[in-house]
């Protein structure tokens, strides 16, 4: 790609999407012609950028508004499917916030083995991947994706199974099953490596609750999972766009949701877990749900008119998150009250890198 084209492309970014869909290709052609004629790339880009801002102020022409409303049903369906997938997660979050070991014990979970970490990684990656596929399925149409992208069609059935699995896991005592030694499967994601690094640096929070290496490995892997998931999402959306003609606006919004969610997870880990307020750390799961749903809803509603059912799903999740957050704050308050007593107590419970046993946890 020539420098002229790159600079002109930067100018096109100032235009609204309807303009880019309609005029960008031919305007790029004109920019190339002007470049061969010797007109400066910066001047051309500035001209486009300035007019782009003016076009944004003018608003969308009526015929393009009509075209956007035609896709509203599909967009609504997509939001519904994405929301429906995360509803069980909100249920899990509500249940987890009041879980006994998170409230009463400073020791918390003892970290997981390689199998558990792998399972968590696979589950999160599958979740992100499946959501993107379901979105593409509904956006492009069932028949189109079946005819032109067989693999995507098969994989897009995964979320249904995943929802059932998440519901079962969320409602089951994992300790009794012997699958997880301590807590629910999102603990590794909550107690991330970044939170732990902050704890080490501040030197104030030494709860001895997390088994050093295991937690770090889990945190790192969960981060890696998020990144792989984000990459997979981007890849699948790009593939869907090129194969079945997904609108570019949707690709961009999905990418924003994915990247934004990863960022919010980072902020919530560092902000909440890093301060060592174990109970409030549970709020990170609702935070993830909130971010994914909130941004997705906000972005889609700004592009398309939302159907009522996704709107209802959204408010349901907001209610669940409210309950989860209050519960988590209550748990955090209890933990804070216990904190001074635990710090004064010497021994393995406040050792940074010692792995506490299950007995000492109780």
């Amino acid at each position, binding site marked *: 790609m020539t420098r002229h084209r790159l600079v002109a492309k930067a*100018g096109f970014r100032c235009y609204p999407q309807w*303009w880019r869909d*309609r*005029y960008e*290709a*031919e*305007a*790029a*052609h*004109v*920019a190339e*012609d*002007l470049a061969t004629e010797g007109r400066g790339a910066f*001047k*051309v880009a*500035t*001209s*486009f*950028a*300035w*007019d*782009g801002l*003016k*076009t944004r102020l*003018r608003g969308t*022409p*009526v*015929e393009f508004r009509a075209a956007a409303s035609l896709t509203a049903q599909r967009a609504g369906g997509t939001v519904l499917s994405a929301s429906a997938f995360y509803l069980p997660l909100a249920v899990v979050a509500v249940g987890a916030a009041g879980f006994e070991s998170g409230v009463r014990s400073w020791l918390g979970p003892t970290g997981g083995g390689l199998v558990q970490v792998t399972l968590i990684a696979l589950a999160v990656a599958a979740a992100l991947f499946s959501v993107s596929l379901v979105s593409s399925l509904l956006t492009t149409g069932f028949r189109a994706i079946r005819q032109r992208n067989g693999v995507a069609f098969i994989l897009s059935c995964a979320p249904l199974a995943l929802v059932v699995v998440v519901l079962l896991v969320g409602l089951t005592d994992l300790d009794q099953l012997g699958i997880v030694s301590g807590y629910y499967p999102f603990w590794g994601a909550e107690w991330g490596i970044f939170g732990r690094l902050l704890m080490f640096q501040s030197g104030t929070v030494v709860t001895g609750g997390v088994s050093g290496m295991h937690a770090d490995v889990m945190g790192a892997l969960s981060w890696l999972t998020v990144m792989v998931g984000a990459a997979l999402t981007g890849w699948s959306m790009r593939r869907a766009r090129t194969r079945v003609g997904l609108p570019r606006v949707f690709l961009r919004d999905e990418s924003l949701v994915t990247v934004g969610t990863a960022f919010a997870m980072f902020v919530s880990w560092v902000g909440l877990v890093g301060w060592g307020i174990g109970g409030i750390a549970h709020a990170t799961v609702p935070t993830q749900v909130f971010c994914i749903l909130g941004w997705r809803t906000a972005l889609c509603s700004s592009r398309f008119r939302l159907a009522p059912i996704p709107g209802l799903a959204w408010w349901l999740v907001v209610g669940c998150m409210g309950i989860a957050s209050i519960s988590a704050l209550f748990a955090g308050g209890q933990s804070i009250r216990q904190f001074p007593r635990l710090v004064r107590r010497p021994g393995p419970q406040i050792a940074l890198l010692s792995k506490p046993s299950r007995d000492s946890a109780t």
Partner: protein
Amino acid sequence: MVQGRRRRTEGSQATSLGRYADPAVLILTSLVDGPKHGYGLLKDIEQFAGLSLGPGTLYGALARLEECHLIEALPAEDRRHPYQLTATGAAALTDHLASLEEVAIVGRERLQIRLALR
């Protein structure tokens, strides 16, 4: 009342060129002698008016004219859409040029009086 005023405003916007008159008139004038694509328009305007329009200005005006149905895009040739004048566009250009002509006549007459008084 307000609704009526709004309707009148929308109607007048659809046929008049308003504040987009200058580049729009140049584009419409250029299209009188046949369809042209973006770069062709820029070169033609440069030739007959001695003005070098920015590509952003050109596409801003093209979008506006197309929205008002004063021009229409023909099927693309190698990613370039040639544009042609519509009947409404030709009528709008005729009206606008006539009003410009009236302004030009009045302006010339007043200038002559002013010069005669000196």
